[in-house]
């Protein structure tokens, strides 16, 4: 095939079936957006379950939500929003060829993610100490509604699944930091940074909805 076409100086990262870096970048972004679409439907199933159970047992959800700490929820949200900002700044840095700054921003994003996970773990442990376990293990006496455990089952399922996604994102941050350090990325080629950013922002968006759904029901 016309090897003439892949004439860009930095075509070492362009795979043979793409004609140039631009087509490859566009394709990768499109692919990531489609993957994000699947994540929306994956999480969406849980959102659907939430909506349906809340329509059946509204009081259980109000009482359950009151048992959670709004300020912690708010702080977690601010944490993730800040991490989205630092992720966007990391992308900006690599777009302007500032590798060191990129690593710093990726690192801050990682740390913010770690704080988020840590906050969750503490919250969960605190809940457990009150007997707020999911499903049939539920033993909290503070709520009179008999269906309160449904709220908590969904709470653990959704924040748990979200937490797993945050952990994966944190792993991706580390991978990106290592590759940036090794000089793999520049303003010419930073596709993995960009598409990891898209993933991280989506994880932030999910939490933006989890906040009112679980902490701000009343």
């Amino acid at each position, binding site marked *: 095939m016309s090897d003439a076409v892949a004439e860009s100086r930095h075509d070492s990262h362009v795979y043979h*079936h793409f004609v140039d870096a631009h087509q490859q970048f566009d394709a990768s972004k499109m692919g990531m957006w489609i993957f994000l679409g699947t994540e929306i439907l*994956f999480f969406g199933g849980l959102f659907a379950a939430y909506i349906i159970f809340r329509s059946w047992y509204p009081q259980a959800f109000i009482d359950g939500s009151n048992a959670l700490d709004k300020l912690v929820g708010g702080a977690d949200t601010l944490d993730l929003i800040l991490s989205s900002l630092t992720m966007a700044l990391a992308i900006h840095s690599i777009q302007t060829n500032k590798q060191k700054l990129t690593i710093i921003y990726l690192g801050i994003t990682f740390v913010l993610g770690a704080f988020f996970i840590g906050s969750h773990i503490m919250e969960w442990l605190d809940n457990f100490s009150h007997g707020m376990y999911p499903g049939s293990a539920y033993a909290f006496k503070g709520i009179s509604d008999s269906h309160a455990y449904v709220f908590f089952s969904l709470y653990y399922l959704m924040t748990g699944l979200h937490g797993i996604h945050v952990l994966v994102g944190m792993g991706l941050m580390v991978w990106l930091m290592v590759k940036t350090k090794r000089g793999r990325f520049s303003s010419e080629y930073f596709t993995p940074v960009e598409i990891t950013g898209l993933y991280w922002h989506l994880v932030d968006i999910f939490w933006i909805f989890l906040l009112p759904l679980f902490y701000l029901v009343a």
Partner: protein
Amino acid sequence: METAAAANRKTVTMKVRRYVMPEHSELNYLNQEKGIKSWLLTRDHKRIGLMYFFTGAIVFFVAGLIALTIRLELWTPAKTIIDAHTYNELFTLHGTLMIFFFLVPAVPGILGNFFIPLQIGAKDVAFPRLNLLSYYLYLTGIIFTVVTILTHGVDTGWTFYAPYSIKSTTAVIPMTTGIFITGFSSILTGLNFIVTIHKLRAPGLTWGKFPLFVWGIYATSIIQILATPVLAITLALLIMERLLHVGIFNPALGGDPVLYEHFFWFYSHPAVYIMIVPGFGIIADLIATFSHKRLFGYWFVAISTLAIAFLGFLVWGHHMFVAGQSMIASIVFSLLTFMIGIPTGIKIFNWLATMYKGSVRLKVPMLYALSFIFLFSIGGFTGVMLGALSVDVQLHATYYVVAHFHYVMFGGMVIALLGGIHFWWPKMFGKMYSETMARISWFLIFVGFNVTFFPQFILGAKGMPRRYYNYLPQFQPLHQLSTVGSWILALGFFIMLGYLLHSLIKGKKAPANPWDARTLEWMTSSPPPTENFSYTPVVIHGPYEYQRPISEFQLGLLSNGEHGGDELEVEAPSGGNSPEMANV
């Protein structure tokens, strides 16, 4: 997506000349790289397609043997060869293997992988390594299932309905985990094809010029992307229910088992369209090629394919008419189910119109295509009948349903797959097969299929429930007839295995274009070289322009440094994706 807007349409001038690929190439994708590692770590879409073929064929074979066992057990009303618990495990396994590990992955995995890049003139799919990952995820899912069989088995039916799937002591978690993993394979494959079709088309190949097989795979990929994640979360919730007793589906804990069915069928109904829509694409290509006539109503067929993909998401409740769903929901679902017959009908009439006044050649792929029209029509009609609420109350969970879905899945999809395999076999392997043996095999399969499954409509209408190990004595004659049919079917498949293996070992060398077709895959050697084309194809005609000479389908861009050639005005693919534009 469509190039309807004039703003999207732009023409560029390119310098092209005719390139003639050799008919056979001694060095091709099968032998250009040698060694087991070159296969296991391949990124070539054609090799990955063959790996899917090999694995899928084994799955089909195993699931088929199970079917023969089931039918043998049903020879007599009481125990014939196996006990009831084993019977439950066997039909669960048959359904799970056939649906999740054969029908859903097969056509995209085998024919989609092999031919989409070829038909659009690309060198590979957009993400070859992801493609390989898709295959290994598929394989991993199968391994989980094998482990399940060898340890415990599952007896819930392939639908894993709550609450029994929560209580059953069988290996529900490993099996659903296997399906979960294979689901990712499906998602990644769909993702890969969508990006490939959008971004990697050859210059001149606009949305109105590619073969209907590409439209079929495109529509299928959209369904895979949107539906499979819901299956994933459903199975994950089921696993959580079993492990942590979360109380979402378990009625004993205040959960709703009908909610499980909603989530499950939100995927599984579109899944049946994942299974059949690629088949629609294959059949369109077969009918046009073997009628040697342009497909009638190209855009009607293309748009109706997308319409089926869309409408398929809105009808899932027709599996739940007697499950305890609200009457309003049932009425809405029934109405939508009737509507989905319309786009399908549009396709069938367009295919028939294609054949009218065409030059019909009854080669084996065409025999399969014609069988498809007949068998799928029966399957489709009976589906609409089941969609009628009052009728479904009688027929739900009877053999009528079993017959319906075997007519669409087997008589439809498998027949289409067989047609596609027989059509593209010469291209994939560079060998021809014995036409005579293939005709005999087709005949046995066609007759055997009808003898197996038509009596099941009658059984169902008379009240024989599905998944039952025992039955009333008056059903025995029809059951026995059905079992005899299964033996005829099996014979047909064994003959097929025979002549296809023979073709690989001793078959005549195939020319590049044995069927006188016009789509791009036939413009390269049989089998193709690893890089598919030694030039960048340029497309100026539609895929079914049989009146045009083949030379006009063998055009390619002049490579660097070449001079001369013809100047050609070419419509750029929508979005100006082809970077060749930049090179002009």
